């Protein structure tokens, strides 16, 4: 059966606390912290973007699995912050990892679930025999308008999953998606910041799709929450995935290891995939994992995975673990954050 052969993540080193953002915009830090349960978020350095983050995640995945670039038959990069409107990030990643000229590549877009949509397509290509193995990347340097609620959560990070049929460390037993036309969050062409439907983003969008996809998948594979060691969900803040997990019947022990948003914020296309990466860092053979992403607009991709014996032969420390990436931090204040994120209007003497 096809599944994850290797995985790698990258999280920028810089962090800002919501208290600092709240201080600038005159909001109550306590109510922000309690409202969204985010204690800090990652900030990309001025020389980082989705291409650089994707390349670092891809290199980590190849290093961990000791996978040569010639084995990669496809590269799909899911993001809502691709550096170019026209010129695929996948081409830059392919060149930077030394992939074959003869290869499938494209960029995907489906808000925060573009990376998991890429995982599904790579799996389908592997299952159909089109490719031996391929890479799906979810990466973002997400945008939040100054003073907007999103500014407290929108962060940066990326995860690459290599999917194949040989030396599989986590079999993808099954996957499905749910999709509807729900205007919970969007960004029009040419606009620098997205718009969200405020409270509308909860029940009709995140919860309906995430819980709906999780239930449908568990029904299809005849499982209940008790069958899973771990569960990971899209995590736009710390509260939504916790509530979704509890509504589905999962306990804290099952979802705490994949919940990273309180430390790094919402990495959008990378959010669920990076949570899954954190679980794969510690999972043991036989562990079953339920992983459900959510993308505004809206839809969810659900995955039922089983960790195999192969994980014992993998040197998981050959690439940085999520725990290591979380421990390397440089704190910045709002002024540095605004400078890094190009939120300050500059003269001609600055690019």
């Amino acid at each position, binding site marked *: 059966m096809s599944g994850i052969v290797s995985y790698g993540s990258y999280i920028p*080193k*810089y962090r800002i606390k919501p208290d600092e953002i709240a201080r600038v915009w005159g909001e109550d830090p306590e109510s922000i912290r309690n409202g969204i349960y985010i204690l800090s978020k990652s900030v990309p*350095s*001025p*020389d*980082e*973007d989705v*291409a*650089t983050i994707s*390349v*670092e995640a891809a*290199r980590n995945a190849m290093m961990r699995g000791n996978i040569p670039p010639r084995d990669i038959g496809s590269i799909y990069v899911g993001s809502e912050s691709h*550096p*170019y409107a026209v010129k695929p990030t996948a081409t*830059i990643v392919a*060149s*930077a*990892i*030394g992939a074959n000229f003869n290869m499938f590549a494209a960029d995907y877009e489906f808000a925060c679930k573009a990376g998991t949509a890429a995982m599904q397509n790579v799996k389908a290509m592997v299952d159909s025999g089109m490719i031996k193995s391929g890479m799906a990347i979810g990466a973002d340097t997400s945008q939040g308008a100054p003073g907007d609620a999103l500014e407290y959560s929108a962060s940066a990070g990326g995860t690459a999953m290599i999917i194949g049929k040989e030396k599989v460390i986590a079999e993808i037993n099954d996957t499905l998606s749910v999709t509807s036309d729900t205007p919970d969050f969007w960004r029009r062409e040419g606009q620098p910041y997205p718009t969200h439907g405020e409270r509308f983003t909860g029940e009709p969008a995140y919860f309906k799709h995430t819980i709906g996809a999780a239930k449908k998948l568990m029904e299809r594979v005849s499982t209940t929450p008790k069958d899973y060691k771990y569960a990971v969900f899209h995590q736009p803040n710390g509260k939504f995935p916790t509530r979704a997990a509890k509504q589905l019947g999962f306990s804290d022990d099952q979802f705490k290891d994949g919940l990273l948003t309180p430390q790094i914020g919402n990495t959008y296309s990378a959010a669920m995939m990076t949570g899954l990466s954190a679980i794969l860092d510690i999972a043991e053979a036989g562990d079953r994992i339920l992983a459900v992403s959510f993308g505004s607009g809206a839809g969810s991709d659900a995955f039922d995975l089983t960790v195999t014996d192969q994980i014992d032969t993998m040197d998981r420390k050959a690439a940085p673990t999520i725990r290591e990436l979380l421990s*390397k931090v*440089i704190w910045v204040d709002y002024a540095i954050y605004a*400078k*890094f994120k*190009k939120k300050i209007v*500059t003269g*001609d*003497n*600055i*690019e």
Partner: protein
Amino acid sequence: MGELSRFWRESNHRYRMIAIKCGNCNEVYFPPRDVCPKCHRESIGKMQETQLSGKGEIVSYTIVHDAPPAFMRQRPYVLALIKLDEGPTITGQIVDADHGALEIGKRVRNVFRKVREDGKSGIIQYGYKFVLEE
């Protein structure tokens, strides 16, 4: 367009640190050279591509405070002479570092970063930079 074609032509060594090894004297050159400056005509036809590890150590470094426009958001930034494990010594930017932690002899490894943007509508140039090995 000259800048664009040069960037494209050099992407192998800028993206992946592909060097050139002289098949005559085994000296490694980075950035790549067409002819070995030691072996001259003896090296013609013997220059082979080789993959660098991207690891090395700081030979010397400076902290740049008077930055060109493309680096104003990173000011002050660190430029270092780095002796790569395969032999060549190159100039590279060290990023994400506490400047107090910089020392001659410290180990570094390469990372993939944005080097410059050709205005708001031009090409984005990527390449190698370095971080301290932890």
